Each structure stands twice: as C-alpha cells, then as structure tokens.
C-alpha cells in the first residue's frame, strides 16, 4: 500500500532560531489510518503537520532538509494551494479561523477557492453542515456560537473542501467539556462513515482519542520517541508521564496493573476497564483497601472569615444578555475553589464581579466586607487579583520590570502602597512565580507563552492580593507545564492566599481544588467539597461537565467496595491491592 504521507529525514528550523524544531523525522502514514500525534509543547507537533499541506516550507520562513511527499506530491515543489485540495487542516483556536460572518459563507470559502461552481459549493456546504450538525446555524455569526459549535464550523469549513487527508491541530484544547465531546463525536463519525480517507490529530487530551485512533506518535524535542499502535503505545504509563503525556485514567490504571502482572491487556475505554476490573474482583485477584482517600489531599489553613460574600447576585450585560440569576456564595479566607460549567454558564462574569471589574445589576458582592458597588476599584484590586486567560490582553510595557511595576504604581497613585515597598514587592512576586532576575529588562513579548503567563501572574501578585482569581490557568500549557502552574497556585494557597480558578479541565479540579462550584445558566447547581461535587455525576450532567474517568470507574466498581469519590489515578491505585 502506497503511504499517503511519506517523510524522510525531515529537519526544520525557523529563520529566527538557531535550534532545529524537527530533527530527522521519518514517518509513513497509510491510507485509512487514524493517527494521533502527541507530546509536550515545543516538541515540533504543529511544525510537523504544517509540512503536510506545505505551510512549511512555503508560508513559514526557515530552513528545511529532507523530503515530504503527500499523495505522491513533493511538498517542497508543490504550492500550498495545490496541496490544500487534498489536505484539509483546522487549527487550535477556532475564533482566529473565522474569516466571514455567516456560518455558510465560512464553509463555502474553501470550495469556492478551489473553483467549484456555486451550485456545487452549495451542495458541499449543505453536506458539511449536515455532517457537523450545524444546519440550523447556517445564518449565524460563527463568533456567536458556543465553543464546540465554533470548532465544528471550522471542521465543516475544511470538510467542505472534500480533502483526502484531514489534519486537526489540537481541536479540543480550547473547548469546554461539552464542546470536546461534540468534536470527538464528529471525528468519530468522520472515521466510521469514512468521510475522509486519513485522519491525523495533534492533541494533549487523549482520553476520547484512545477509543478510536489506530496509532499514536509521541514527539519530543523534534524527534519521534514512540510510534506504536494504540494499545502498545499506552502499555508503559510511567514512560509516557515522564515524557509529558497525560495518559487517560483507564489506560494508566490498566498499564500499572499490567506491569504488576495482574492484568493482561491495556484497556482503552471506560467500558473495557470496568469489564476487566470486575473480572479481577470476581476472580479475587484484586481487593479493595479500606482507607480514607481524603488523607491524600493537601490541606491549607482555612479561616472562618469571609473573603468574598455574594448575595442574590444578578447581572445583565448592556445588550440585555442575562448572565447571572440570583447567585449566593461565601468564600472563606484560605480556600482553593474551582468554578466549573460550560461556556456561557456565568463563571467568568461571576469572577469578574468578585474582583470588582463589573458592578452588580442587583444583589451584592462584598470583598472583605467592602461592597464592590461603592468601593473604588483600586481598593478592591489591592485585595483581589485577577489573572486573565490570555496574558497578552494585559501586557503592554517594553520591559518585564515596568510590567511588574504597573499595578503597584496605580496603587501608589491612590496611596495604597508606599514607594519604598515597590522594589521589594517586585522581587517577592518574581521569586514566588519563578520569573528569573536576568530577564527583568527584557521585552515581555519575547518570552514564551508560559513565561508571559507567569509575568501576568507576578504583576498581579506584586499587588499582594489576598484573593487570586485565575481564569483558565492551564490553557495552552502541556501537562508538565499545567502541573507546574497548579503546584505554584497550591504553594500560594499554602501561604494563605485564597485561590479561585475557572477551568474546564476536570483533572485539574480533581487534583488541586478543595471546593468546587458548578454553574449552569447563571445559577449555582452544585457547591461543596470537590469530592462530593465531582462524584455527583447526575447533577453534573446538567452543567455539561463529566466527572474524571477514574471517578466514573470507581463508581462502576462501588459494589466491589470502592469509594464513589475517587478523583485521581493515585487514589485509585491506593484503594486496591492484589489479593
């Protein structure tokens, strides 16, 4: 069988860098294969797939060595436009992919460029919208859609070009849980209905892909570290974790059991894992350990004093959109809280109200007893810091030092900080966030995204807020970086800061948050200890959030003595032992 993609000894480096991003890649992808490429950030995943449709070397400036052939066409000598007729590609952020203001126009753009006559374009648009279940949205502005619908629009816009090879670059990384599920359903249907011949997905979230992909490739530092069929790929979870892969819970558990010779195969889906473990319990090869899994959770000092009190809070945006409908919460000093729920549930609005960035339409928000309606913003931000999802929304100074000084100087003008304290506070926030001193005079835009995020956090921390609200702290970060950020927030929590995170990542919630608030349609549906909230699968359904896979597994094994509220793989492994 002739491979559809054939890469030989591919080397690539960007013009502005001395380092090779791809180092001697050899890869063959056969027709009909579903391949997942994973690996930590900066491992060269996006660069590699950019070579599939000629964006590398034609649209990106750099040096390329080796050869890439796609459907027999040599990428180095073929136009991107010619390759696009065969290779469809969607990118990570759906919003930056929207060129026009109606869904059908957006989907028509590709086939129109390929020269299909209007009637044929219409048929392709109708088909692609049907496949992606967007037919009713055809007149809407793509920007107005939910996260999942946006990414589906981007998929439809590529699918309508009728490509033989579909390449998806982190299609779910910016989506809420329901959005992720929607995209996975479409990808599954693309495979099962053979709508495209070959599918290549770059992704960090492997849970759903493990069920459907034929083969996984692990890329690190520009080299292929592992290239195996799905089951074999997950057979050594420790190796994958060491190399920055977040292994799906059921694969990790079965991998560990296989290593101990308790289980024969790696399980790729929840159902497979339940069947395999039930069998082990029945055959008495496994037994539950009676233990308090709560004791594995880190504890911070929580006082009775309220940091934030929200009473009967309603908020309506100027365009009439109702975002919050009667919210009541009390957050105590020292808590570590996660706000969860699908996009549009009101999480971000609520957190901006807590920080005093928005003022309530009715009801009240009190920050350490100060009513945000009447308290000037500087007095509030000295107590509550807010870190935005995208650090680039707040960075504007030409040196990191000026960036860190900015908030403090604003406080200085309101006499909320003394001038002689500024330097000390900058040093302190740098130390805590791990921003090295030697880059203090560098331009922040020259730093990596991870470092820019730290600079953004440091600039807020310098104001010494007692409460820190972080919106999506792990977006765009790979697994090791995410763990790093969360450990850092935990350290702040242990130092006495109250931490509130807004996140779609349930493993982050499970691993770090002590209390979880689940929201839907501007209301709070669940509020309590994370273990209780995440194990309440029924109510969570209404917030379109799915508990972690390991929680669902432990609940399925409840009859065999496992607690219902296990949240992490470590907890699970500690709760069972061989008979």
């Amino acid at each position: 069988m002739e491979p559809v993609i054939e890469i030989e000894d591919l080397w690539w480096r960007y013009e502005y860098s001395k380092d090779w991003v791809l180092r001697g890649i050899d890869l063959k992808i056969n027709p009909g294969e579903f391949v997942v490429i994973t690996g930590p950030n900066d491992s060269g995943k996006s660069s590699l797939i950019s070579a599939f449709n000629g964006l590398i070397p034609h649209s990106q400036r750099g040096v390329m060595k080796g050869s890439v052939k796609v459907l027999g066409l040599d990428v180095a000598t073929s136009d991107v436009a010619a390759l696009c007729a065969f290779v469809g590609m969607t990118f990570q952020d759906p919003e930056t992919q929207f060129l026009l203001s109606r869904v059908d126009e957006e989907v028509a753009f590709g086939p129109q460029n390929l020269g299909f006559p209007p009637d044929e374009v219409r048929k392709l648009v109708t088909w692609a919208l049907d496949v992606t279940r967007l037919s009713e949205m055809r007149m809407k502005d793509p920007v107005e859609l939910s996260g999942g619908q946006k990414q589906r629009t981007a998929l439809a816009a590529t699918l309508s070009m009728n490509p033989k090879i579909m390449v998806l670059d982190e299609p779910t990384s910016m989506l809420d849980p329901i959005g992720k599920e929607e995209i996975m359903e479409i990808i599954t249907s693309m495979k099962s209905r053979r709508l495209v011949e070959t599918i290549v997905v770059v992704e960090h979230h492997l849970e759903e892909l493990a069920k459907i992909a034929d083969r996984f490739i692990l890329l690190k530092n520009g080299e292929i570290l592992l290239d195996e069929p799905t089951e074999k790929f997950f057979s050594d979870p420790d190796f994958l974790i060491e190399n920055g892969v977040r292994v799906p819970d059921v694969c990790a558990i079965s991998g560990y059991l296989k290593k101990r010779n308790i289980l024969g195969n790696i399980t790729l889906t929840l159902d497979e894992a339940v069947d395999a473990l039930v069998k082990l319990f029945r055959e008495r090869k496994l037994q539950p350990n009676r233990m308090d899994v709560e004791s594995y959770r880190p504890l911070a000092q929580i006082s009775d004093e309220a940091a934030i009190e929200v009473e009967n809070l309603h908020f309506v945006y100027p365009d009439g959109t109702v975002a919050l409908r009667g919210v009541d919460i009390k957050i105590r000093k020292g808590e570590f809280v996660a706000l969860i729920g699908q996009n549009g549930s009101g999480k971000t609005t609520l957190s901006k109200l807590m920080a005093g960035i928005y003022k309530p339409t009715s009801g009240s928000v009190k920050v350490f007893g100060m009513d945000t309606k009447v308290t000037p913003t500087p007095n509030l931000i000295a107590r509550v810091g807010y870190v935005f999802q995208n650090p680039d929304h707040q960075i504007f100074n030409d040196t990191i030092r000026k960036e860190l000084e900015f908030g403090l100087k604003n406080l200085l003008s309101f006499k909320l900080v003394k001038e002689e304290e500024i330097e000390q506070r900058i040093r302190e926030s740098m130390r805590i966030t791990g921003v090295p001193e030697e880059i203090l005079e560098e331009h922040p835009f020259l730093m990596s995204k991870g470092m820019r995020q730290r600079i953004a956090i440091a600039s807020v921390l310098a104001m010494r807020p007692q409460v820190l609200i972080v919106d999506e702290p792990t977006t765009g970060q790979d697994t090791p970086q995410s763990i790093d950020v969360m450990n850092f927030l935990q350290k702040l929590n242990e130092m006495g800061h109250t931490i509130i995170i807004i996140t779609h990542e349930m493993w982050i919630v499970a691993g770090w948050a002590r209390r979880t608030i689940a929201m839907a349609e501007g209301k709070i549906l669940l509020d309590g200890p994370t273990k209780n909230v995440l194990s309440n699968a029924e109510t969570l359904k209404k917030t379109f959030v799915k508990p972690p896979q390991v929680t669902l597994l432990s609940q399925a094994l409840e009859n065999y003595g496992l607690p219902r509220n296990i949240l992490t793989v470590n907890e699970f492994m500690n709760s069972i032992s061989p008979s």
Partner: protein
Amino acid sequence: MATQQVIPRYRTFFSYVAATSIANKMSPITKIFILLFFNAYPIIIDNPIYNAAFGFFNIILMRVFKATLMHVEKYFKVLMTLALFIFVSVIFFGRSVAGPSPTVIATIGPVEVYSQALGFGVMVYVRMFALVSAMLLWLSITTTSDLMSAFEKLKISYVARTYLTMAFRFVGMFDSDFNTIQDAQKARGLDIKSQPLWRRPFVFGYYLIPLVAITIKKAIDAGITMEARAFKAPLKVKFLERAKLEETYVGRYYWRYSKKDTVIIAMLVIVFVGLIIARLYGLLSNPFM
C-alpha cells in the same frame, strides 16, 4: 460569554441587525451607495446645524433598521474626548483659521480667542460627528456577504474584495478585544473612567499596545487559515481550470435587487446633486464663521 439572547439577529461588521430589519431586504449595492453618499454629504456641507441634523438622522435610521446601538454609544463618548482636543486647539492655535479680519471674543493671558476659530472648531467637530454616525450606520447594517456580493457585481477582483471584506470584519473584532483589554487593565488598577478627561488620551496607549499585538497575531492566524483553505488557488493553481470564480456561492445566493433599490439609489443621487448645487450657491456655508 454569557447566555445567548433569543431575538434572531444577523451579525454585521459592527454589531447586529434584527433578522426582521428592512436593511436585510436592501440590495448590497444600495448599501454601497449609502456608504459613498452618506460619507460625502457631511464633506459638502459646512453648516454645523445641517450636519448635526444629518448625524441625528443617521442615529434614527439605526433605530429604524433595528441595529444594535450599544456599541455606538461608546464611540460617541470617544467623540466627546475629541471635542475637547478640537476646542483646545482652536482656542490656543486658532489664528490660522480665523480669516483675515478675526473677531476677538476673549483673552486668556497672552492668548486671544477668535469667534471665527471657534466657529471653525464647531464645524469640524459636527462634521466629524456626522461622518462617524454615517460610518457607524453603514457598519451596523452591512454584512460580509453584502460587501462580497456587491463587489462581485461591480467586477472587483476576488482577491481584492476578500481582503477588503476581511478588513471591515476586523472592526467588530477590535471591539471585543478592546473590552477584554479594558477589563484586564482594570484588574491592575487602571480604570479609564476614573482618569481625568485630559489624561485619557495618554492612557489609551495602555490599551492600544496589547490591542495591536493581539490584532497582528489574529491577522497572522487568519492569513494561515486563508492559505489552508486554498485562498491562493485561483491565482496559482493552473490545473484547476474551473477556478475562474466568475460567479461565487455568495454572489449567487446573497445577491438581491428590487425596484425599491432603484428608488433609494435615485434619491441618494438627487440629494447629492442638490447638495452640490446648494453649495455652489453658498447655501451650505457655516454661519458661525
């Protein structure tokens, strides 16, 4: 983002227009004529009273066309800041526009304030108001498909019309990024509303730098997406013989034209000619100069 509204509406370049709006029945070419003539009228007119009336007429039209007005308010606030600058300029540097025999109406230290200079300031400001309101009206009722299909009928090349449409599309995107940046800076103690009026233009830098950086990033991403969707195919791929794009999907299915459009265009032209004649007879001059 919060809960979606249920009123059916279409996205325009600047905001939204209700699905039931008569603007959606108007031909795309009529909207092009509105763009051209509504922006030409204030330039022909010097009389601030007429221009002010025209500006308010545009706002009323926005209501008639059921366009969302919430963004509009913000731009008029920016105009207030502009007013301050225009009037400071004509007070302190008004001699050059005050004509050969200026009338001094006040003296501020060594500075003489001329009535003609103030009249000039009023004319410039109100003209700006009329122009901004005309542009906002057009941006509020025009969609990407309107512009694409109108340009197609005007035989503007596919590449040029796509780039032009996308340039306008970015106007609305600026607005949402600007709001987020404003919130992000507020979280570090910078609230433009709490700043004195004179300081506000200087504070804008703190918003503009991230806005420009994000816009450049978005433009690069959009460029890559366009390439990935074969935008250069009609120019480069010789084997795609069908790629002439004489008629596109948008041109076929979004084009509309009726007799009412002929009437509107005729009225726009008649008013334009009338204004030119009125100007030649000095009927549109500024009475305050």
